[in-house]
């Protein structure tokens, strides 16, 4: 009473061959985590830097240049950095060798007014003051006096214009407006009530990634996690993941200096140099995790790793033991 030869041979080799295939596929996936994760990066985040030369074309007559020595905190503050202002006091640019801040050119203002009327005014009011035509509170908040960097961050990361105004948080998405259009909006909103911070232009050449890691773990990791994979917070809010996103260094500086939504605003406790350290760590390491140990398993730590080790490791060993001990 024998089974046909082919079937017997097949069933005998089924278990070990299946195990081997699964192990081979799993190890392949560990070597190429990006292939399974899919293309999650956006190509919309081109960085536009405003060079000081461009800024001095402001039609404001003589430019007043103020140099600051012995600045203590040097934290994106025009009063503690060397700065350029028009004689009428209008701030053009300020900063140091780590980050220079500059307002968008005056020539952007008129285009920004048109763009704002088309894409933003229905929620924020026609004067960006959070008041609707009936004189009541509009859907969106008052934007006057938030500084050009705030507007540039929200628009260039695609969070504004929002698709769902009832949502708890405006999620990052491919930007509907070009980087230049974001600057035009920033120029107009800032012209209504000039404020700081202006749009930053970080210079990462001298940045220290190691110091950036220390500063990240001290100031950022509480919410974004030590791996930068993001985490849930209170009342439906969350700290977004920093991994596998093409966020520019400029946008990271804007987030740190302006504190979008529920993120705290980091000012005097981080100098411009320290901010570039953090930015260098975020854009140079965290954004593109290399995972030398194989699959990151979400970067959530030992629970997931232990689970996989037990399930696949011990489970696989048990199956192999069954196969060895199998009687024909």
């Amino acid at each position, binding site marked *: 009473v*024998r089974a046909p*030869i082919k079937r*017997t*041979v097949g069933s*005998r080799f089924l278990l*070990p061959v299946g195990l081997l295939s699964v192990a081979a596929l799993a190890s392949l996936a560990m070597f190429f985590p990006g292939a399974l994760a899919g293309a999650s990066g956006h190509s919309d985040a081109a960085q536009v830097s405003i060079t000081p030369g461009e800024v001095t074309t402001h039609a404001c007559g003589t430019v007043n240049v103020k140099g600051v020595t012995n600045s*203590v*905190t040097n934290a994106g*503050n025009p009063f503690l950095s060397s700065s350029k202002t028009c004689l009428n006091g209008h701030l053009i640019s300020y900063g140091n060798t780590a980050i220079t801040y500059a307002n968008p050119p005056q020539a952007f203002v008129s285009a920004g007014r048109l763009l704002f009327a088309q894409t933003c005014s229905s929620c924020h009011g026609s004067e960006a003051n959070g008041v609707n035509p009936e004189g009541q509170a509009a859907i969106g908040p008052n934007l006057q006096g938030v500084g050009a960097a705030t507007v540039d961050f929200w628009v260039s990361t695609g969070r504004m214009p929002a698709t769902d105004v009832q949502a708890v948080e405006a999620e990052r998405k491919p930007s509907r407006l070009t980087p230049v259009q974001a600057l035009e909006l920033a120029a107009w909103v800032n012209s209504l009530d000039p404020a700081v911070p202006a749009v930053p232009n970080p210079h990462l050449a001298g940045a220290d990634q190691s110091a950036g890691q220390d500063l990240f773990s*001290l*100031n950022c990791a*509480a*919410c974004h996690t030590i791996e930068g994979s993001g*985490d849930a*917070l*209170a*009342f439906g*809010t969350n*700290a977004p993941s920093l991994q596998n996103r093409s966020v520019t260094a400029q946008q990271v500086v804007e987030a740190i200096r302006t*504190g979008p*939504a*529920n*993120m*705290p*605003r*980091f*000012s*005097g*406790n981080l100098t411009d140099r320290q901010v570039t350290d953090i930015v260098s760590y975020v854009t140079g390491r965290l954004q593109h995790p290399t995972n030398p140990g194989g699959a990151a398993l979400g970067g959530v730590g030992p629970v997931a790793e232990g689970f996989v080790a037990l399930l696949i490791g011990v489970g696989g060993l048990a199956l192999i033991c069954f196969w*060895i001990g199998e*009687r*024909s």
Partner: protein
Amino acid sequence: VSDTDHQPSRTRVPMPIAALSDPHMGDAAKNPDRTEKIIGLILFVSIVFFAVAGAAYVQNWNPWTFGGALGAGLFALGFGLTAWGKYLMPQGPFVEERHTLASTSEERDTMSAALVERSAVVVKRRKMLGGLFAAGATVFGIVAAFPLIRSLGPLPGTSLETTGWRKGMVLVDSTGRPVRRDTLVVGGIMTVYPQDTVDPQNGFITDQGQAVDQTVLIRVSDQPFTTEPGRESWTPDGYVAYSKLCTHLGCPVGLYEQELELLVCPCHQSMFNVRNGAVPQFGPAPRPLPQMHLGYNDDGYLIAMAPYNQPVGPGFWERNS
């Protein structure tokens, strides 16, 4: 089996191995030449992989190459060995007839007689050995209890109720930099420590400064505000400071949501409203975070106007409130 079947143990008895035509012998065993070739191929593959691993080691190739080749070689070796045993060795169950193991009755009688005769002398209670054994076990038991005894004392005294904060101490960050009026803007947060526990060159001087004294400093507003009656002057320029130790289990409460004005504990999601004295709004925390009375010194630096007015961190047995 009776004694008459007894045979000299050295006698060679042919073991009845299952014939290759036996029904429980597998298909592979019915064609042993082919199976041997396959297993030989697998073993040869293991040799090749080992050679690659050796070359990778000598030539200092990529560690993935070395590890992968070594792993593959070991796997092929083990696979071949297992397959050899599984397909080319006869498999049981086998029954081997053997001679009786019992001694002859004469030998057994002699043995029991000797035991009976000698037991009166040899087998007896040995009190000294028993006593020494008991002493050893007792000493071990006492020594093993040392950690338990040590954990019972000394009593913590007031160490759980005090921190390193003293009246007039300047708030500094983790690098020893003091905090000024314009350090934070509204919506900013930082962790501060007592001045004397951080050295600008060497970092934290004491563990206590890092663990017990850590305090979150938040600028909630431009104006002073009142978290609780009686604390009107505790929040100069809208700065407010709370102990960073969660009152539940002592995790660092470091997640600040500036729009919701909430501090969130990452361990069990306790939420504290920073405007109303960090009263827990959600989660298992039983008490508000202790608030620090803030002020400025003559140089314009933020200082603690008084130590914390209650123990920080989780509850403990002797806690009064």
